């Protein structure tokens, strides 16, 4: 056993145990760690976004950092004031919209934040409409309009022995994908009553979706357990030195 000599590791280990104590029951140590986490996370994003977003994009471009002596490069303000047009001056509108967003902190004038909010919602609507149409609709639809059997894979299998999943993919894979996609889409169509052939197809769609959700659940379990394994390796390895 080789205990870590770094104070940071000890702090991290105690914070890990503090959060984990919630598994036994809610307690002041857990509440302390939780409050610490909330404050640190908010502060982390606050600092990160300033240095990596606002400073280079807004303050540098406008020349505010040059004005305050924090930068040597001229910004839009310096160029425009010296008689030279600089299109970066338009960033002043982004700054104004940003400040308008922050005014939401004050209830009486919080309504002003609707303007930058409208800019964000409008631009994301326009952006997502095209990208989702191309990537999540057209491409997916294109790969559902496929032959019922995969002749390429069948001929590849004919040359040698294959595994169960290879045979399935060759002979039944395409049919299952087409049937599953169509029946799943029919299930999601709630504008028509699920009766008769339509209803029967929707019920088949439910079974395909159940298999999908089962697979997602299996992977979710894998993911959560991985996170626990990582934490235990940290405690037993980096902190207590019991494993390498």
């Amino acid at each position: 056993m080789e205990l870590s000599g770094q104070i940071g590791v000890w702090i991290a280990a105690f914070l890990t145990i503090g959060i984990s104590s919630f598994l036994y029951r809610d307690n002041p140590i857990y509440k302390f760690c939780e409050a610490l986490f909330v404050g640190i996370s908010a502060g982390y994003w606050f600092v990160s976004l300033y240095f990596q977003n606002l400073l280079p994009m807004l303050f540098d471009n406008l020349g505010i950092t040059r004005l305050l002596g924090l930068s040597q490069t001229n910004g839009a303000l310096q160029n425009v004031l010296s008689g030279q047009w600089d299109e970066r001056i338009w960033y002043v509108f982004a700054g104004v919209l940003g400040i308008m967003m922050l005014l939401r902190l004050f209830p009486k004038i919080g309504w002003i934040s609707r303007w930058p909010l409208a800019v964000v919602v409008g631009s994301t609507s326009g952006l997502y409409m095209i990208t989702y149409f191309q990537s999540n609709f057209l491409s997916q639809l294109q790969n559902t309009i496929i032959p019922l059997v995969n002749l390429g894979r069948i001929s590849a299998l004919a040359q040698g022995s294959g595994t169960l999943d290879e045979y399935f993919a060759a002979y039944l894979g395409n049919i299952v994908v087409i049937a599953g996609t169509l029946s799943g889409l029919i299930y999601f169509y709630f504008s028509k009553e699920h009766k008769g052939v339509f209803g029967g197809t929707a019920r088949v769609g439910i079974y395909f979706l159940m298999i999908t959700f089962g697979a997602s659940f299996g992977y979710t379990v894998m993911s959560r357990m991985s996170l626990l394994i990582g934490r235990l390796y940290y405690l037993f390895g980096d902190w207590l030195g019991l494993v390498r």
Partner: protein
Amino acid sequence: MQKIFEKLLSLDRRYIFLVIFLAVAVPIFLKLKIDIRVTDEVNAFYKAIAELSSGTRVLVACDYDPGSEPELQPMTEAGFRYFITNKIRFIIIGLWPQGPMQANKALVAINEARDEYIVVNDEKLYFGTDLVVVGSDTARYGIDFVNLGFQAGNELVIQRMGSSVRAAFQTDLRFGKPIEDFDIMRGLNKLSDFDFIYNISAGYPGTVEWVQFAVDRFHVPCGSGSTAVQAPQVYPYLDTGQLSGLMGGMKGAAELEKLVGFKDKATMSMVSQTAAHIFVVLFIVIGNLAYFATRGRVAKKG
């Protein structure tokens, strides 16, 4: 028998927590060797990067945070190991603020040099940050790899990179120098100048955005390492060929480690992972057995 099942149904959940803890913790100390079976999707990813020749430039998009480190960090490390030993140059960026820092952490982890630094032409070069040694190969910051840091804007960053990398990333993370000053960035003006994108993703923004913008718009091939939660959702992109390969969760990371030839954290963790899965399956079976065994008695009582 009925009483046993009734007791099982009303079991305090803390006993379940204890069993899971032991199931995961005990194998850590046993150091059992385990053989990993490589799936087609990870093979496809490996094939895609194996086709890259020496000197080509890969964009490594680290879109994850410490919360996903156990699953994704081994993938990042295995990927970096492969790139350095095969002299493939890589440019690190992140759409998550913590991503580029996780990448730095990965480089420090894979570095095999024991010294802290070396002096070259009166310049101190630190191992793990300026120089990364893997086996007999060394990668140098600015020439073989560079970290451009995080940029806010999510998918708009990708769109901006499509026309100009410089419009999205002006300076590097380590020195704050203009990106044009680095040898590795020469000739890299837009996204389509990259030969491959290796995206390591924990959610939004991540693989979906890289597929929608980088692959579908700018036609750059992309391989993904995803958390196990996200992986099932991106399988359709693999099926359509929008993704060149996919590694899902810690299992995917272990498979990549096997292919790269350096079994590390993910492989070591698979025994604990296996034990955890077995116990979850057992819990579901026992829970259902107890439920159905006592349901008849409850129905009779009612």
